[in-house]
C-alpha cells in the first residue's frame, strides 16, 4: 500500500464539523444537484416530453449517488458544497429561464 503522509493536526471539533458538513452536502447538496440535473435533462434529452421526464427522473439516483461519492473525495467540505450548489444551480437555471424548452411536447 502506498505510504501516506501523516495528517496535519486538526482540532477534533473542526474535524467533526467537517464530517458533518460533508454528510449534509452529500444528502442535501447532492439531492439539489440531482434535482437540477433532472430538470435540465427534461429539456435536453431528445425524446417526447413524457419519456424525457421519466428518463431524467430515473437517472436522478445515479446523479445523487455520484454526488455523494464526490463529496467525500473532494479536498474540502467547502469545495464540495461549492461544486454541488454551483453545478446544480447552473443546471436548474436553464429550464427555469427557458420553461418552454423543458415543457415542449
Amino acid at each position, binding site marked *: *500500500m*502506498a505510504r*501516506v*503522509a501523516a*495528517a496535519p493536526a486538526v482540532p477534533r471539533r473542526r*474535524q467533526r464539523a*467537517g*464530517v458533518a458538513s*460533508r454528510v449534509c452536502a*452529500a444528502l442535501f447538496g447532492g439531492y439539489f444537484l*440531482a*434535482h*437540477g*440535473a*433532472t*430538470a*435540465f*435533462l*427534461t*429539456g435536453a434529452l431528445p*425524446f*417526447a*416530453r*413524457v*419519456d*424525457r*421526464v*421519466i*428518463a*431524467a*427522473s*430515473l437517472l*436522478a*439516483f*445515479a446523479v*445523487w*449517488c455520484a454526488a*455523494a*461519492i464526490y463529496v*467525500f*473525495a473532494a479536498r*474540502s*467540505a467547502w469545495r464540495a458544497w461549492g461544486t454541488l450548489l454551483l453545478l446544480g444551480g447552473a443546471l*436548474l437555471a436553464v*429550464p427555469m429561464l427557458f*420553461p418552454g424548452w*423543458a*415543457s415542449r411536447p
Partner: protein
Amino acid sequence: MKNSLLQSMAWLHTWAGLVAGWLLFAIFVGGTLACFDKELDDWMRPALHGTQPPETPRFDAAMAWARERMPDAHAWWAHAGTARDRAVTVHAAHDDGTVASAALDPNTGALVPDTAGGSFFFELHYNLHAGTPGMYVVGLAGMLMLVALVAGVLIHKRIFKDFFTFRPRAGGQRAWLDGHNFTAVLALPFHLMIAYSGVAIFVASYVFGGVQAGYGGDMAKFWEEAGGYYEREEVGRPLPRLHSLDALVADAQRRMGAPVDWASVHHPDDASAVIQFGTRHDRAVAWDMQQVTYDASDGRFLHQTPPPGPAFRTYAFLGGLHMVQFGGSALRWLYFLLGLCGCAMIASGMQVWVRKRAARVARAGALSGHGLVRALNVGVVGGMPLACVAMLWANRLLPPGLPARADAEVQAFCAAWILAALWGAWAERRGHGWRDLFATTAAALLLLPVLNLLTTAHSHLPATLARGEYALAAVDLTALALGLGFAALAWRLRGRRMPHAARAVEAGA
C-alpha cells in the same frame, strides 16, 4: 478529509454501511422472503389446500363482501385466485386510509381464515409497515446501500486477485472480511440492480425536478400521459346497481390479450363508479400495467390503456426486474439465494465493524455507542429470523375463528422480535447471545414441519408431497434446510462463554 481517496471512501463505506446496516438487513430479509410471498400466503391458508382455483376468476362474491364491510369506500379491489396463491383476497379502502381485508374461497366465495401471509414480508420490505414515512426511510436506506456499494468497490484494491478468496479457517476478522467481500463482489450485479431498481420503483415519490420542469408540477397530467389511466369525476348521485364483474371478465381478457389477475371498483357508492381489470406480470420482464375500464352500473366498455411509451416501459422493466414475477419459480429461487447472499453480506459487514474495534467494544460498557452496536447486531441479525419463524408458528397455532387473525400473527412477529432482541443482547454480555438465538431459530425451523403435522390435516409434508403440491411442500423443506443452516451456525459457536471482544482484550490484542 482523509489523506487519500482510499481512506475517505473507506470511511464512507464504513459509516454508510453501519448507519443503514440494520435497516438494510431487515429490508433484505423481508425482500428475500417476499420472493415467495404468494407461496407463503398460500401455505398460511390451510383451509384451501387441496383445492384448485377456477379457470376463469370470479370477483362478485368478493365485491359483495366489500359492499357489506365498507359500502362507502373509496375503492374495492380483489386479486384472483391463482396457482401460486389460491385465495381471492379482497380489500376495501376508505378515504381516511383505513383498509379492511379478507380472503375468500375462489370457487365458493366463502370466507376463509385470513393470514398476514407472505404479503406481510413484502410490505415490511418496502415500507417497514410504516406507511409513507416508512417508504422514505427505506428509500434513504437504498441510497445509502448504493453509496456503500460504490465506495466498497473503490476501496477493494484486490478485487480481481481476491475474487475467489474465502478463508473461513483463518478465523476472526480475516474470515469475516473475506465472507463480506465474496458475498458482495460475486453478487455485485444483483446488489446494484436490486438497490437501484428498488429506489427507482418509487421515483414518483422521490424525484420532482422532471415533472416540475416538464409539466409545471402537474402530476395528474403526467400520469395521464405516462400510463394513460382512466379517471372520471364523482357526480354525487348514488350508484343504482353494481353490474356483475364476473360477466365482464371474458371481455376484459379478450381486450387485454392477457388473463385477468385483479379487479377493482372505484367510488362504488357513486353513479360515476367504474370497474377496472388488470393482468399479471408473469409474461415479460417489464410489468404489464394495462387496464380496461367499464361503467359500474351497466357494464359498458369505457376505456383501455394505450401501449406504454419507451420510457414507461423502461420504468416497468426496472420494476419487473426487481419484483421478479416472471421466469417461473426457478428464477424466484435464484433471487432467493442471491437475497440470502445479500443478507450475509450485510451481516458479515456489521461483524467486520465490530471485530475491527474489538478491544474498544469490549472496554466500552453496555450503555455506550459500541454497546448499542453490539446489541443491535444480535438483536436485528439474530432476532429477526426468529421473529419470521415465530409468525409461521403463530399461523398454525392461532385458532382459525379468531377475529383479526392476521393482526394477531403480526403481533406474534413483533413480540417475538422484541423478546429475542432483549434476550440476545442480555445473553451476549456473557458471550452466548448469538448462539442462543441461532439455536432457537434452528429448533423453530426444524420443528415447523412437525408443528404442521400436528396442527393440520392436509397441509403437512407427507400429505402435500403425496398430492403433488410441491410449492406447499417446499415451504416445509426450505424450513428444514434453513434450520440445518442455523444449527450449523449455533454449533460453531458452542462452548463460547465470553464475548469474542473480551477474549481479544484478554489475549492482548
